[in-house]
C-alpha cells in the first residue's frame, strides 16, 4: 500500500516537536501535583476546618416585579408589602418555649408550627423559615411588643402583587404564584430561584421575563478563622421592567361596569393601528387571592364556576359568530360577482335546499332586497342564496383574508385560533363529510364556524379602515426601572387586503344601516351625530328556534350568545368595538347598547361628541333635591 508519507526523516522532525509539547505538559503535570500536595497535605487541615465550618449562606432577595400601567402611565398593577414571621434556628434560645409563645399570641396550634420547623430540618441553621404569612397590622404590633421574648424570630417584609382595580380585567393582567418545582426545571425559567413568584396567566405570564427583574443575593459569612466575624456581601435586587399597556382606563372601567354581572367579553380597539383600548372578560376574579396564597374555598369557588372566570374570553374562547360573520358572506358574494350592492334579490322566510329547509330568523321576511337591506335587517335567506352558489373553500378564503381561523398574534397567552371549516379540515378534525347545507349555515356564522372576539374586531377594523389588517396588541412599550426603554412595540400590518373600494364602502354602508336604518337590528345603539356602524349577531347554542326569545323560559346554558361588533365614525374610524354576551338575557340589540355607551365615552374623551343638553343638565343637577329639578 502506498502511503502519502513514508519519508521517515520528516516524521522525525515532527516527533521532535511532539516531544517538545510533551515536555511542556509534563511540567504542567508536575505543577498540578505540587499544587494538590500544597492544598491537601500542607494546608489540608486549614481547608478541612473551613469546609466543616463553611457558613457561607446564600439568601435570595426577590426583585420587586415591574408595574403594569395604562396608556397614560397610571398604575394598574404594582406591589405592596406583606409581612411574615420567620425564624432563624441558629439564633433561637429555646425553640420549644418560643414556639409555644408564638402559638399562644397568634392563636395557632403549637403542633402545626412545630411541624413547619421540623419539615425544614435539613436546611442550614442560618436560613430562615417562614412560620406565619400575611400578618395583619394588628398582629404586627403584637409581635413587636413581644419581640424581646422571641430571639431568633423576626418580621420578614416581602413585596406581593397588588391589583389596584381588583376584578377588572383580571384575566388580561393575569395573576402570579409561587414558582413550582416543575417550572423551575424549565429552561425559560432558569433565572428563577425556588422562592420566587412567577406570572401564571395574562400579561404577568406573557411578559414574565421583563416584569421579573433580577433577584439579589445576600451572602452571609458567619465564621472566619477563630474569630466570629460576621461578613455580609449583598448584591442588590434589580426591579423588573414596567410594562405600559395601550389600555384606556376610563373605557376599561366603564366596560367592566357595564358587563360586571354578565358572562362575556368586551374589546375596544383603535382600528387604525391595532392598539387595544379596553379588554375585559366576565365574570372575573380577584387576582390578589393568588399572590396572598389562595384558600381552598376560594379556589374551588373559582374553578367550579361554570362561567369560567379564569378564562380570558376575549382571546381564549372561540364560538359561533352568528350574523356578525355575514360581512364575510357579503365580501365573498361581491368579489365573486354573485351580487352587486344595489341588485335586489328575492329573500323569503325560508330557503329550500333539496329536502332541507333553512329558515330566516324573521318569518315575516318576504320581498326582493339589496345588500344594504340584507345587512340592515340581517336577512339570512339573502345570504343563503349567495352561499348556495359558492364553494365552502371560497367562503373560507375570504374568512382567512379577514384574519379568521388563525391566531391574531396578540401579546396574550393561550390565544385560540378559532375554526374556519373547509371540506378537508372538517374531515380531518371531526371525521365528517361536508354537506352543502353546512355551507349555508357557515355563511351566517353557524355550523363549524368558530371565532374569537379578538378576531372579529380585527376583521371589522380592516373593513372600517379600508383593508388594513393590523395585529392587535396590548403592550406599547417596556421601560426599565431606571427609565431606559427596553422594548418599543410598533403596530404591525399583517396584510393589506386588496378590496375593491366600492365593495368596502358598500359593506360599511350596510353596517351603517344596521344601526341607523329604519329597521336596523341595532337601532338602539344609535349615537346622536355620529355615524356608528356595526353588526349584531346571535349564535345559537342548541339548534332550536324560539318563536319568541324569552330568557325566562330557557335554561341558562341553552340561551343564545349575543354579539355586537362595530366601529365609529364610518369614514375615519376612531374606535372599533366588540361585545360578547354569552347566554344572554337579551340579544344583539342589547349588546349594541353596551357598545354605544363605550363608544360615546371614547368619542367624548376625544372631543368628538358631547352628551345631550338634557343629560348634561341632569348631571349638573345631580346633587339637587328632586323637587327643584321637577320645577324647571
Amino acid at each position: 500500500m502506498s502511503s502519502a508519507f513514508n519519508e521517515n526523516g520528516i516524521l522525525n522532525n515532527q516527533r521532535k516537536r511532539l516531544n517538545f509539547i510533551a515536555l511542556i505538559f509534563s511540567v504542567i503535570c508536575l505543577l498540578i501535583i505540587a499544587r494538590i500536595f500544597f492544598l491537601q497535605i500542607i494546608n489540608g487541615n486549614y481547608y478541612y476546618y473551613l469546609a466543616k465550618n463553611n457558613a457561607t449562606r446564600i439568601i435570595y432577595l426577590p426583585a420587586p416585579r415591574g408595574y403594569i400601567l395604562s396608556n397614560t402611565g397610571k398604575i394598574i398593577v404594582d406591589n405592596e408589602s406583606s409581612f411574615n414571621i420567620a425564624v432563624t434556628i441558629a439564633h433561637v434560645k429555646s425553640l420549644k418555649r418560643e414556639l409555644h409563645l408564638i402559638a399562644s399570641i397568634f392563636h395557632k396550634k403549637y403542633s402545626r408550627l412545630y411541624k413547619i420547623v421540623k419539615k425544614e430540618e435539613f436546611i442550614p441553621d442560618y436560613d430562615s423559615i417562614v412560620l406565619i404569612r400575611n400578618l395583619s397590622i394588628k398582629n404586627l404590633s403584637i409581635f413587636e411588643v413581644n419581640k424581646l421574648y422571641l430571639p431568633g424570630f423576626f418580621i420578614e417584609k416581602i413585596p406581593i402583587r397588588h391589583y389596584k382595580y381588583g376584578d377588572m380585567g383580571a384575566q388580561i393582567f393575569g395573576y402570579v404564584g409561587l414558582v413550582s418545582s416543575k417550572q423551575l426545571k424549565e429552561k425559560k425559567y432558569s433565572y428563577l430561584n425556588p422562592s420566587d413568584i412567577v406570572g401564571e396567566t395574562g400579561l404577568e405570564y406573557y411578559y414574565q421575563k421583563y416584569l421579573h427583574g433580577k433577584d439579589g443575593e445576600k451572602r452571609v459569612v458567619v465564621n472566619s478563622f477563630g474569630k466570629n466575624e460576621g461578613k455580609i456581601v449583598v448584591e442588590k435586587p434589580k426591579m423588573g421592567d414596567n410594562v405600559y399597556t395601550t389600555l384606556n382606563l376610563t373605557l376599561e372601567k366603564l366596560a367592566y361596569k357595564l358587563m360586571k354581572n354578565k358572562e362575556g367579553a368586551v374589546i375596544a380597539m383603535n382600528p387604525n393601528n391595532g392598539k387595544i383600548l379596553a379588554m375585559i372578560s366576565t365574570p372575573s376574579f380577584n387576582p390578589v387571592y393568588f399572590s396572598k396564597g389562595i384558600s381552598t374555598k376560594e379556589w374551588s369557588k373559582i374553578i367550579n364556576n361554570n362561567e369560567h372566570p379564569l378564562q380570558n374570553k376575549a382571546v381564549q374562547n372561540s364560538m359561533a359568530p352568528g350574523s356578525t360573520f355575514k360581512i364575510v358572506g357579503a365580501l365573498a358574494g361581491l368579489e365573486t360577482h354573485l351580487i352587486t350592492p344595489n341588485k335586489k334579490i328575492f329573500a323569503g322566510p325560508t330557503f329550500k335546499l333539496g329536502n332541507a329547509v333553512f329558515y330566516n330568523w324573521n318569518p315575516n321576511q318576504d320581498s326582493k332586497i339589496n345588500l344594504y337591506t340584507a345587512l340592515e335587517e340581517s336577512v339570512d335567506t339573502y345570504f343563503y342564496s349567495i352561499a348556495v352558489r359558492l364553494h365552502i373553500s371560497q367562503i373560507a378564503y375570504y374568512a382567512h383574508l379577514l384574519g379568521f381561523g388563525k391566531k391574531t398574534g396578540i401579546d396574550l397567552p393561550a390565544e385560540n385560533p378559532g375554526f374556519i371549516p373547509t371540506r378537508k379540515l372538517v374531515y380531518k378534525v371531526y371525521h365528517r363529510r361536508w354537506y352543502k347545507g353546512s355551507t349555508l349555515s357557515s355563511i351566517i356564522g353557524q355550523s363549524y364556524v368558530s371565532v374569537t372576539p379578538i378576531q372579529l374586531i380585527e376583521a371589522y377594523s380592516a373593513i372600517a379602515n379600508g383593508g388594513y389588517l393590523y395585529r392587535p396588541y396590548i403592550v406599547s412599550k417596556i421601560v426599565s426601572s431606571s427609565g431606559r426603554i427596553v422594548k418599543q412595540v410598533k403596530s404591525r400590518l399583517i396584510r393589506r387586503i386588496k378590496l375593491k373600494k366600492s365593495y368596502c364602502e358598500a359593506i360599511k354602508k350596510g353596517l351603517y344601516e344596521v344601526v341607523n336604518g329604519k329597521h336596523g337590528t341595532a337601532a338602539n345603539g344609535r349615537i346622536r351625530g355620529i355615524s356608528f356602524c356595526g353588526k349584531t349577531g346571535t349564535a345559537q347554542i342548541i339548534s332550536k328556534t324560539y318563536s319568541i326569545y324569552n330568557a325566562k323560559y330557557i335554561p341558562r346554558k341553552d340561551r343564545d350568545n349575543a354579539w355586537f361588533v362595530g366601529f365609529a365614525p364610518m369614514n375615519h374610524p376612531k374606535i372599533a368595538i366588540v361585545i360578547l354576551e354569552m347566554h344572554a338575557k337579551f340579544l344583539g340589540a342589547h349588546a349594541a347598547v353596551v357598545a354605544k355607551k363605550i363608544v360615546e365615552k371614547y368619542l367624548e374623551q376625544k372631543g368628538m361628541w358631547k352628551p345631550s343638553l338634557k343629560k348634561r343638565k341632569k348631571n349638573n343637577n345631580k346633587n339637587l333635591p328632586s323637587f327643584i329639578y321637577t320645577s324647571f
Partner: protein
Amino acid sequence: MKLSDNIKNFDFILFFTVIIISFLGIVNLFGSESFNHHELLNSYVMKQILWFGISYFVMFAIISIDYNTLIDIAYYIYGIVLFLIIIVLIKGKISHGASRWISLGLFTIQPSELMKIALILALAKYFTDAKKNYYKLTDLMIPFLVIIIPVLLIAKEPDLGTSLIVFFVGCIIVYLAGIKRVSMIIAFFFAMVALPVIWGHLKTYQKNRILIFLHPAKASLGAGYNIIQSEIAVGAGRILGDGFRRGSQSILNFLPAKQTDFIFSTYAQQFGFIGSLILIGLYFILIIRGFKIVYNTKRLPAFLLGSGALFIITLHTVINIAMAIGLLPVVGVPLPFFSYGGTSLIVDISAVAILLNISMRRYKYQSG
C-alpha cells in the same frame, strides 16, 4: 487484514484505563449529590450511565471504520458540524439567550463540542493533502480560516472554554505539521496584537474570572466565590479524603457546577490526596499510551489525527484540574469521562476511539 489481527493489535491497556476512569467517574457522580432512592432514576448518575452506553457504542462504531476513511470524509463532517453551530447561534439569537444545545427530542447535543473532533479530522486531511515539509504563513491561510471560524462562532455562543480548546488543538496540529520559525514568530506577534481586541469582546463575567485569577487578593465573595469554594473542597480532602458521599462541599451545594466544571474538587474532597494521585496516575497512563501510539505511527495522517485526539484529552484533563485547584482562570472545560455531559463524553470517547483505531491498524499501512 483479518479481524483477529485487529483484535491482536488492539490496545487493551488504553481501553481498560478508560473503562476504569469511567467507572470512577460514575462512582464520583453518585457521591456528588444527596438523593433518596426515588430520585435516583432521574439523577445525573442515571443519565450519565445512559450516555456512557451511547458513547461506547460510538466508540466501537469509530473503531470499526478505517481512520483513513474518516479523514477522506473530513471536510463533510467539518461542514455539517459548522452548519449545526450556526443553527445553534441563530436559534440563540431568536430566543435572546445563550444557547449551546440542539434538542434531539430525548437528548440535547452541543455542536461546539463536536467541532473538536471535526477540526482535527479536517486539519489532518488538509496537511496530508498539502504534503509540505514546512509551511509559510501564506500557505497557512486555509488552515487558519478552518480554525478561526469555528473558534469565533463558538466564542459568540458564548462558550469560551470550548472555543479555547478548539483553538489550542488547532494550533498544536499546525505546529506539528511544520511551520517556519519566522512565520511562528510573526503569528505570535499578531496574536499579541489581537489580545486587547479579544479582551474588549469578552463578557463581563469572563473578564472578572481572569481578573480574579490575576489578583486573587481582590477576589470578593461575589465573583471569587467559585474558586474559593473549589480550593476549600480540594484541600479539605487531606490525605485520605472525607469518604464516599461525605464531601460536604458538594453535598451541601457550596461547590458550584459540582457535576461539570468542578467535578475534580468533588472527587478530591471525597478521596483525598491518595485518590487524586490515583486518578491523575490513570490519566497519565492514558495519555502516555496515546503518546506512544502517536509516536510510533509511521504515516503523517495518522500522526496528525492521533496527536489531535491525544491533545483533546490532554488539554481537557490538564485545564480542568488546573482550574479546579486555582492554577488557571475558570473556563468551562470538562474532565474526560468524569464530568457530567453527554456531548463532551462522546467527544472524549471518540478521541480515544481514534487513538485505538490508529494503533489497531498500525501494521496495515506498513508494507506499502
